[in-house]
């Protein structure tokens, strides 16, 4: 068994070395395909960041009545957090904080500052800012529960109806962008896989007569198939090494340029944080496509 495996390995390395031209062609096509998948991975990372940034800007606010105590409001906050796992953040803003935010925001606006002085007292209400996954249904549901639950007597108003249109529009845009990215990704991957399959088919087609001879002399299917599969693995590993290096260089040098387009998003940090995902996808895709294509093509010739 081990001897056979060593022989198969030896055949594969020899064939790879003796067919440098076709081996390079296969590696080139596989590298392009993995780069495409890597590009989609970077694109998805950027889109996710953009979506989160937009969704985090959208919230609804529940304003409490003037007499509501902090402990009562924090209890409501805990209840809201229990409502759904899709609630990302609930932030308590006290009367004093609301006043401080207002003063800070309008410190240069003398009219507003004077108006506030004329009111005399702090006119702001304590509130809870609620951020979910961006789904308008989620916001509507929270708004509905807040206004119809036991603690509705503590709530003065929920501003969902004013923000409803904006929330729906933003959610629809982010959902469509994600869907478009997914569909485009699938189409591109299918095209790329077809190109790799055709290239590997051409590589193995050169060995069609050889496979037939091997069959005639009584070689087992695995003894014939093995070297081609191992060559697929070699193509995959070499393509992976090229791609991971190119990804690293790309992420490092383009990081500042992408940060100009997408402030706050550091593509190099994104690459380093998701290092293992990149490695697994590139390696898995390279070896997977190489081996599966070789398996299918050799199987076809073994059946002739």
């Amino acid at each position, binding site marked *: 068994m081990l001897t056979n495996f060593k*022989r198969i390995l030896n055949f594969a390395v020899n064939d790879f070395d003796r067919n440098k031209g076709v081996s390079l062609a296969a590696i080139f096509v596989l590298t392009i395909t993995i780069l495409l998948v890597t590009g989609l991975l970077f694109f998805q990372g950027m889109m996710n960041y953009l979506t989160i940034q937009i969704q985090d800007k959208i919230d609804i606010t529940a304003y409490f009545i003037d007499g509501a105590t902090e402990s009562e409001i924090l209890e409501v906050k805990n209840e809201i957090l229990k409502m759904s796992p899709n609630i990302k953040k609930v932030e308590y803003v006290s009367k004093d904080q609301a006043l401080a935010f207002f003063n800070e925001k309008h410190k240069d606006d003398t009219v507003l500052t004077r108006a506030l002085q004329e009111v005399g007292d702090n006119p702001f209400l304590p509130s809870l800012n609620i951020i979910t996954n961006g789904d308008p249904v989620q916001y509507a549901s929270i708004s509905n529960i807040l206004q119809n639950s036991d603690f509705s007597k503590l709530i003065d108003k929920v501003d969902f109806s004013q923000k409803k249109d904006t929330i729906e529009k933003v959610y629809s845009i982010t959902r469509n962008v994600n869907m478009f990215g997914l569909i485009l990704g699938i189409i591109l991957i299918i095209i790329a896989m077809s190109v790799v399959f055709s290239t590997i088919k051409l590589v193995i087609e050169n060995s069609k007569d050889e496979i037939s001879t091997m069959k005639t002399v*009584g070689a087992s299917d695995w003894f014939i198939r093995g070297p081609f599969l191992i060559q697929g693995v070699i193509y995959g590993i070499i393509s992976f090494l090229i791609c991971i290096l190119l990804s690293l260089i790309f992420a490092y040098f383009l990081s500042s340029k992408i940060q100009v387009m997408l402030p706050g998003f550091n593509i190099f940090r994104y690459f380093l944080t998701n290092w293992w995902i990149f490695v697994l996808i590139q390696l898995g895709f390279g070896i997977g496509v190489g081996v599966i294509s070789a398996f299918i093509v050799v199987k076809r010739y073994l059946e002739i």
Partner: protein
Amino acid sequence: MIKFNNVTKIFQAKDVVLEDISFQIEKGEFVCIVGKSGAGKTTLVRLILGLEIPTSGEVYFGDLNLNEANPIKIQEIRRKIGCIHQDYKLLPKKTVYENVAYIMQVEGKNNEEIAKEVPKVLDIIGLKDKTNNFPDQLSGGEKQRLAIARALVNHPDIIIADEPTGNLDPYNSYEVISLLQKINQAGRTVILSTHDREIINKLGKRVITIESGKIIRDEKAGRFII
């Protein structure tokens, strides 16, 4: 040893290549299968190797009905047969040494045995100096000798030579046929498929004549008559 029992092979509707063929080949026999090009000789050889399945009838190798044999059994049978083809069917990406060694590797022989046996066979066949050459660096005669070395290296029970002299000059043809005779004298079964009249008439061995897919003659010490 090999038995064809009412074998018919039809490739496509109305394309009958072999029709109701029955014959038997005993151990140690030298059998010539003759016929014009397209008579069905190569299909007959492919049926013995289990590369084709009869449309009807049975092909037996010993007691084993090849139609019912599983792929592993078929592979075992192929390893018991040494094949020589008109187009050599060498492995182009392997050297002369590797081409011969491959057959022993398929058989599962160990490396020491291979290292001992292959140079010996290459020496006998006169290719010792071409050990590291690739098939495309050999002449036609050398290619055929390599094909013979490959067919002999595992000491198979049967040698099937399908038009082995088709691409050779008279001198090389004579060498190949002499070698097949020697193999047969050593007790092995030889099946020679050819349409070379002179060779058949000189051999004076059993001749099965095929015409349009049918056996029209089967003679003990036959001649080439078509």
